[in-house]
């Protein structure tokens, strides 16, 4: 979400909606805008909204977007009847629509009817070869069946054409990590760093993967990228601060190397920032964390 103020506004609105007094239309719009996964609530509140004819009129042309939103949320909760109902309304309004076709494909997926889903997406791709959504659903089908190898192949094929799609690179990295293929995951994060050099997340993830790979050289790389993640997040990212301490601790234990003064200084700096944060926002764990950090320095 964009800011703490926005998040706070959303949370207050959500509480009111849950109590039955909030503006459901606004809440649903915010859920769509921030791409939040609130499937159970969207299904409940969305259905109530769609059943109310005066509220439906109030939505105007937005009603079709809400039908789509509720259809997807209902699938996520396995409320397939609700989903089917919404999709039928959309088919009646928009016959031969590719966008509605995607929903039909997703419903097959939700039912576990993989072959029908694949056929649907293949049809969509034949009509529109640049339909990125249909490609991604094919990856999702492979993942849902537990076939991570096929998911990887499908993603690689997709990225051959759509090489600037960050979401796809990120998904591929996560699948590689789940399979413990860390070098391949590192490659994906390298692509993401090249595409978005100032995004601390990519630097952090790259560092985490390098640390997991292990070995002196990878640990040095990890430390470098934890440091850049700290810089890019203005020292706010706790994982990168911890990561830097862990790297430095392992590197300083290496025998026969010249004392790495810069490394020790970095570790001290990171440790003091961590301790300050805990004292301010989590004092009940300050002693534990101080002790942990002291042990890393030894």
């Amino acid at each position, binding site marked *: 979400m964009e800011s703490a103020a926005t998040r706070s506004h959303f949370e207050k609105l959500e509480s009111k909606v849950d109590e039955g007094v909030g503006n459901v239309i606004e809440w649903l719009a915010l859920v769509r805008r921030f791409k939040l996964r609130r499937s159970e609530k969207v299904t409940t509140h969305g259905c109530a909204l769609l059943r109310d004819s005066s509220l439906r009129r109030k939505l105007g042309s937005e009603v079709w977007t809400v039908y789509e939103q509720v259809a997807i949320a209902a699938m996520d909760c396995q409320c397939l009847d609700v989903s089917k109902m919404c999709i039928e309304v959309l088919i009646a309004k928009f016959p031969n629509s590719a966008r509605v076709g995607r929903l039909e494909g997703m419903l097959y997926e939700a039912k576990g009817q993989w072959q029908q889903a694949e056929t649907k997406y293949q049809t969509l791709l034949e009509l529109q070869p640049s339909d990125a959504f249909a490609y991604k659903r094919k990856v999702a089908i492979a993942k849902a069946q537990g076939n991570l190898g096929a998911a990887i192949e499908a993603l690689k094929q997709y990225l051959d054409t759509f090489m600037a799609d960050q979401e796809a690179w990120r998904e591929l990295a996560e699948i590689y990590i789940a399979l413990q293929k860390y070098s391949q995951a590192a490659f994906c994060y390298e692509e993401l760093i090249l595409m978005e050099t100032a995004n601390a997340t990519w630097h952090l*993830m790259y560092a985490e993967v390098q640390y997991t790979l292990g070995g002196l050289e990878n640990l040095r790389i*990890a430390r470098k990228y934890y440091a850049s993640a700290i810089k890019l997040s203005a020292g706010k990212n706790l994982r990168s601060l*911890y990561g830097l301490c862990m790297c430095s601790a392992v590197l300083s234990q290496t025998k026969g190397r010249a004392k790495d003064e810069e490394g020790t200084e970095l570790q001290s700096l990171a440790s003091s920032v961590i301790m300050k944060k805990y004292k301010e*926002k*989590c004092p009940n764990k300050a002693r534990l964390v101080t002790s*942990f950090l002291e042990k890393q320095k030894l």
Partner: protein
Amino acid sequence: MVGKYEIGAKAYLKAVLHAAKYKTCAVNGLLIGRVKGDGLDNFSLQILECVPLFHNHLALLPMLEVALLQVEEHFSTVDGGLQIVGYYHANERFDDFELNAVARKIGDHIIRYCPQAVILMLDHKQLAALPKSGSRKPVMQLYMRDVSRVWKQGGTTAELVFQDTTTNNLLEAYMADGRQRLVVDFDEHLDDISKDWMNRALFD
């Protein structure tokens, strides 16, 4: 290896509620307790507490190491001294019962410090069927490592039992109440330091 395995309500509830909170992810966590008896025969392992760890990137090392060290240190001073006695894991997919490779690796690591350590794999199907089945058994598969260093299911000679047989009733009550929303894991703590991975307020 012959032993008795018991799980306390707090530990069980935290683990299962953690999985219930993150239905669309694989989750994992540490099991804390004590072992009575020294060898690999005739011991009793009690799982008394639990620290939910991650719901993202379970196979990455750095934050796991941070968590292991902090959890170990914290519990060494609790209740006369408790140790890490196991690890729990819930796979991402509903129908996936395989003992995950990451789970095995982490289990191998924990065994170095606790030779009787166990891995508990959450059984999603049993959990989903709980309201109808009324089962008084934990919805988990217990795995132990045999002498050939292979993780195997406990079977009938090594069954996990509740310390309190009404634990599943409590679980159903908490889930009906939506208590899982309040579970905090180490991942969340790293994103917001004010969140308590010890979940001290969870059962208030």
